[in-house]
């Protein structure tokens, strides 16, 4: 399923020229630079992912570094 969703995220990011993307329930524990760069078609991307319950309930935040400078983050529970 992630494969299809991945394509959809790619599509939305490209169509809207997104600068910040919030995903809920990524259901994966394997987010990497490579994966995020491929979603944006760009490697100027920052991201934070929390892996919970083997991926269920996990969330991914990604941003374009051209618009957002990372300072810090906190995670809930």
């Amino acid at each position, binding site marked *: 399923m992630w494969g299809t969703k991945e394509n*959809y995220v790619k599509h939305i990011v490209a169509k*809207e020229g997104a600068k910040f993307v*919030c995903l*809920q329930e990524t259901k994966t524990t394997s987010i990497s630079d490579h994966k995020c760069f491929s979603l944006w078609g760009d490697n100027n991307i920052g991201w934070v992912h929390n892996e919970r319950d083997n991926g269920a309930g996990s969330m991914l935040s990604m*941003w374009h570094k051209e618009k957002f400078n990372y300072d810090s983050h906190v995670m809930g529970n």
Partner: protein
Amino acid sequence: MCFVVNVYAACNYTDKVLFREALTSFKRSYQNMVGCFCDDFNAVRKEDERKGLRGSPSQKKEISGFNCFIDTNCLIDIPCVGKKYTWFKSNGTAKSRLDRFLIFEERLQRWSSYKQYVQPRIVSDHCAIVAKSWVKDWGPKPFHFIDAWFVEPGFKEYVKEKWGTYNVQGNSISNFKDKLKLLKGDLKDWNKNVFGCLQSN
């Protein structure tokens, strides 16, 4: 400093309340915080934002709790465009608006052109939502000739005087067109000097 809060609220009522309290105290701990809470609050603001689920007694409490959270934190629920609901039960028997952007920012004007666009439901039971500025380019502003100008003393003299000063080159018809264009600029100035900016009065 700008905060973007990726929100994924619990379904359970008690957990939702605790979660919103946590968000409130988080926001309170930063002065002049600017940013947004976005996505899945698992809550609605009005009864018609939920369809198909049998109205439970807690529904009203949940709605008022969510609205109270929005008011307490002075959040702006930016207008929604497109589909009304963001979540659909797979068998189609229920739908709700569970996802939204809530903005916190003192300079509200900055967000006045922003809208949230609910995308078609494609890969999930939730629809993606996109917040973006909606500024349409309407092209050049039309020139308004105001009737009242004719009765204002000095108007005709002003036009006559200005018309005589325009030095344009070309044939008669293009001269006339160019002079009208120059007159338009002068009339705008004249209107500003004589009547002022009416909108600000």
